[in-house]
């Protein structure tokens, strides 16, 4: 609902002090909202329940949108947002899985979350658990070698329970060209969407290929 989305936007204003990452946080907001509002299966009161979809904020940077969505969905009280980055806060400038209800992984150093998401996806297959794993990376993060190791690995292992969202807000120093095309070349089902268009995002995130991992490149034009 538009009203809820506006409320989440308002919640972001509770958090101050990390302005250098405003752009990063703002760029993920729409995707995170659609993911938590309409796509993922979870129980905010039992955030580690086995039968849940997993979300990994691989890029870690600018987690304000992530925190606002989690708070809005009831993982923790909205008042916590006002403690952002303070000494005793559960909410740091990069998420800590041992502090934030709903955070699956602690991230911050780039290029760690996607391979962790692959491990989770492989583990779920071993457990014969059909839940999905979503990982969110940034285009700048795509400069890390471990991201390309991961893209190669997930494609070759045909991890169909993994979806990687690439937020492309054009921060990469090297020209990445057509990111979706690159994922496709590594054996992924890959699409490109407008990162502000909720229906496009929803359609892309609900698609699950039978034999391939999925990449959704969300374009955020400045």
């Amino acid at each position, binding site marked *: 609902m538009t009203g809820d989305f506006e409320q989440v936007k308002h919640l972001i204003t509770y958090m101050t002090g990390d302005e250098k990452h405003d752009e990063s946080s703002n760029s993920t907001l729409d995707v995170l909202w659609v993911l938590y509002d309409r796509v993922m299966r979870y129980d905010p009161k039992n955030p580690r329940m086995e039968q849940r979809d997993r979300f990994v904020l691989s890029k870690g940077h600018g987690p304000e949108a992530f925190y606002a969505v989690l708070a809005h969905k009831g993982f923790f009280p909205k008042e916590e947002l006002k403690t952002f980055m303070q000494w005793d806060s559960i909410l740091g400038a990069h998420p800590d*899985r041992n502090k934030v209800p709903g955070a*699956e*992984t602690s991230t911050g150093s780039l290029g760690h979350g996607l*391979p962790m998401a692959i491990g*989770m996806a*492989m*583990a779920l297959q*071993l457990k014969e658990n059909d839940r999905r794993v979503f990982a969110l990376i940034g285009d700048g993060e795509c400069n890390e070698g*471990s991201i390309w190791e991961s893209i190669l690995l997930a494609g070759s292992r045909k991890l169909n329970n993994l979806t990687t969202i690439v937020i492309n807000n054009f921060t990469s120093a090297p020209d990445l060209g057509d990111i979706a095309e690159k994922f496709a070349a590594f054996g992924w089902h890959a699409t490109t969407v407008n990162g502000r268009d909720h229906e496009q995002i929803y359609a892309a995130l609900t698609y699950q290929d039978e034999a391939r991992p999925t990449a959704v490149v969300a374009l955020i034009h400045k």
Partner: protein
Amino acid sequence: MNMRQQMVKTLEDLAKQDERLVVLLAAISNSLFSKDNPHIARRVINLGIMEQTLISVGAGFALEGFIPVMHSFAPFLVERPFEQIKDDFVYQQLSGKFISTGASYDYSVEGMTHHGPGDVALMHTLPGMQVVVPGTAQEFDILFRASYANGANTYYRLSESANPFNSPVRFGKLEVVKQGNEAAVIAVGPMLGRTLAAVEGMDVTVLYCTTLAPFDGETLRAASASSNIVLVEPYYEGALVRDICHALQSRLIRVETIGVPYRVLNHYGEPEEHDAHLGLTPEGIRSRIERFLEQ
């Protein structure tokens, strides 16, 4: 059977009994594992030559309740993906088991890129990281079985160099091998055999250390009242000095560190030639201890 072969046997055996165990490989040792048992084969996974991803994928398995065992040569398991070990396992408070092979200059002819004398010092900087240096294949089996499911992060340093005999070992314990008055000599892992040869006829205590972290300071304190401490290690010298200082805070002590020196070691040849060059032979160790005690 060397330590690496024992590792394969131990892991295959434990994987049959414990469905939580997952072995993740980056090509190294993949061909040594049997793929006959499909039940185990699903949990012995060769990811390919991507060590950073190896560690992070392991953390993903740990997040899902598995016990991941990650393995490669020492420099590629420890030094290349060190940040992944630190962030994904230590900072996230997950448990993983890291088993290296090719210790120090075991693979001497391969050159320095394949040497790993810095592994123990580096892993020992990580909070809560357990460090195990077995002296024989059988000791690895005992120590791994005792610790693989303990919920901690543990580094196991396997080597081609081994003691000519097995010793009784317990995870987390120093073993008192002999007692004397002039010094306490702590021999780590595969250095025990040559250390015992070095101190023959000398009036010293010899302690055998296979678990470096957590360090058994209590046994060190109780076994010897001497102020002369000699540490004999198979990797860069001095990794245990901090632990010894903490354990013996109430005493004035002198410490001699005998191990691989912090030098660029750009020779090839046999590991034994490196030992001889660096004085890590029974004669060289004896000479260092004698000089230390004369000072």
